């Protein structure tokens, strides 16, 4: 019974959110949800479609032609050339695209390499496809970069794909062109697919030290999907959720060479028939008129990134972090050595996951929700993820509570007793 689902878990992020919902005054830095509402121009586009009575029926399985055409145009601006008729599929969020892609390209028993720490739900989808996730740790000392030697060692004759997120969730790392080309070379040598989840591509803060190129926006990341010779190997995913504050609309897209997209389309059809049509119209509004909002969000996140980093600096005896270059997360390590964090960690040491205990303790004591690093893979242990997708006031309030707690922790034990459940 339940053979397919027995290895699956409800994502730890969702578990934390469920627990957090039990507290009336919780401040959540856990879920990766932008605090902005969907921009007005997108809502108006949807209103227009509703009034015209065009949202009640299925669209074509790969999506509305006018949306796919817009996607092709937007990809071309980023130096990616894909035929909207045969190579672009509109999906119900990127996770449906990931599921369809994995089910299409793998067979049960295959291995899929994931550099970690990375997004928590990848693991579950890989299990769902009957495959095995192989974690390859990122190099924290080198700004969470790929260590190609580790990838080489992880490849076996069962390996089917390498699956990464760029910019990476939760570390906010932007992989350099050189690192990505190294990965591509490995994929060529071992005949592997490369699945590139680029849902945070619009949120890029630093280009120094990276080979980011400029276009109409401040900067953009390099994608392996830009290289025509890799088009049969690369499956690239994007979601409107983060860039346009549309997490609830569940719409995204994927693209690959016709020979690959054709197979993914069969799975997409059996999973969802088509992405929600009303959301496809919202996506059209986003591509037609949403650029200004993305730029505004990006600037806002940069301010919040700087704010959260300055607050982390004030807790340097607790957290040790690498400043994120992209996405809207920071992934601080719990400082080793005698510190309040250490005190919390030691009390959790009996459990296999320290970060899980630490996150629960923060939630129980001060009603601040963060995601334990273990959610993002074994190498994430000893860290927590904080989202600065939340408002500045939420960030400030959360850190005020943390500062108060950690100051109390430094007091003699007799006056303050931490209770770990």
């Amino acid at each position, binding site marked *: 019974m339940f053979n397919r689902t027995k290895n699956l878990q409800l994502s730890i992020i969702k578990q934390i959110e469920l627990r957090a919902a039990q507290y009336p005054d919780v401040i959540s830095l856990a879920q990766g949800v932008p605090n902005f509402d969907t921009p007005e*121009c997108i809502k108006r586009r949807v209103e227009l479609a509703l009034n015209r009575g065009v949202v009640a029926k299925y669209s074509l399985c790969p999506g509305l*032609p006018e949306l796919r*055409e817009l996607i092709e145009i937007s990809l*071309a601006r980023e130096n990616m050339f*894909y035929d909207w*008729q045969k190579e672009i599929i509109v999906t119900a969020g990127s996770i449906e695209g990931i599921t369809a892609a994995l089910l299409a390209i793998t067979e049960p028993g295959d291995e899929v390499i994931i550099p970690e720490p990375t997004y928590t739900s990848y693991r579950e989808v890989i299990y769902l496809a009957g495959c095995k996730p192989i974690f390859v740790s990122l190099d924290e000392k080198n700004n969470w970069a790929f260590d190609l030697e580790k990838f080489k060692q992880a490849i076996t004759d069962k390996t089917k794909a390498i699956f990464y997120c760029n910019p990476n969730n939760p570390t906010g790392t932007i992989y350099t062109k050189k690192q990505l080309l190294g990965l591509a070379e490995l994929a060529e040598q071992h005949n592997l697919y490369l699945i590139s989840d680029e849902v945070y591509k619009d949120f890029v803060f630093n280009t120094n030290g990276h080979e980011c190129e400029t276009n109409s926006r401040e900067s953009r990341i390099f994608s392996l999907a830009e290289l025509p010779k890799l088009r049969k190997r690369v499956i690239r995913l994007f979601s409107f959720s983060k860039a346009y504050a549309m997490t609830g609309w569940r719409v995204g897209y994927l693209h690959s060479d016709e020979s690959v997209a054709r197979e993914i389309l069969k799975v997409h059809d059996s999973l969802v028939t088509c992405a929600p049509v009303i959301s496809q119209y919202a996506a059209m509004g986003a591509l037609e*008129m949403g650029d200004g909002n993305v730029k505004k969000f990006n600037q806002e996140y940069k301010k919040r990134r700087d704010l959260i980093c300055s607050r982390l600096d004030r807790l340097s005896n607790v957290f040790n972090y690498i400043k994120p270059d992209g996405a809207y997360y920071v992934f601080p390590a719990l400082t080793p050595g005698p510190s309040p964090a250490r005190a919390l960690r030691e009390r959790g040491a009996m459990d296999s996951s320290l970060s899980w205990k630490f996150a629960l303790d923060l939630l129980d004591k001060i009603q601040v929700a963060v995601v334990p690093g273990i959610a993002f893979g074994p190498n994430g242990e000893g860290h927590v993820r904080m989202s600065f997708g939340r408002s500045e006031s939420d960030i400030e309030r959360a850190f005020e509570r943390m500062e108060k707690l950690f100051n109390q922790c430094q007091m003699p034990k007799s006056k303050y007793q931490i209770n770990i459940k």
Partner: protein
Amino acid sequence: MKKVFKLLLKYYLKYITKFVLLIHRPTIIAIAGSTNKTFVKEEVCRVLRALEKNVRANPRSFNTEIGLPLAILYLPSGYNSYKNWLPIIFKSFLAIFQRDFPQYLVLELGVSEPGDMKYLLSIIKPRLAIITDITQRYLESFSDMDRLVGEYERLVKKVKKNGLVALNYDNIRIRNLAKVAKAPVEFFGLQNGAHWQAVKINSSAILRGKGRSSHYNFSEGGEEQGQTIKVSHNNIVKKYKIKYFGKHHIYSLLIGLIIKNYVTKHGKNN
């Protein structure tokens, strides 16, 4: 209130645009069809600029009753904000006195409701018209396909004898529109019978060596993947290479060649 403002704005923009066109008299190239208008527009602009013509086109897809005048006047949209519209309304008046008004306007015409084409053609008089394709897209607003095709028929009829109509030969309904054209018709397509026919396509070619590089940018050096196309016109076959994938880009290429041919022949009069 919103509806009244929109109506007033619509007619204000219409008449100011007509007046601007009357003063500056640019050559208008109209691009209509259910799909592929944007890529065709980009290719036509590229061809004209290569011929050193001064060109303006719709930014993004400003191709409706409000968007088209804004495209001609080269103004942004105020979208849903009264405040944003005020400076735009003022600037639209200044377009009358614009000094370097372009020789060519390349305009997408969007049709999603019955009567849309009639309204757009009450603003502009195209010298050249291109119909890219007609599919079932937007059909939900029309009682049947004939009504939808009827919108495009208006455009074909509107072009005078000294103009040109470029039609997609591969679509039988579009092909039949030639019957109502006053202007000469050039057919483009993949099928035998098209005046500009793509006769041999390699859709996953390695682009290197000789061949006319049309369309879009190629990165310098190295090799690129893309499409190579042999185009037959008047029994002469030439080979082209393009970086984009998909049949619709082959149509864009053919349309670009038609426009280049027309403007080269009639350039002095335009």
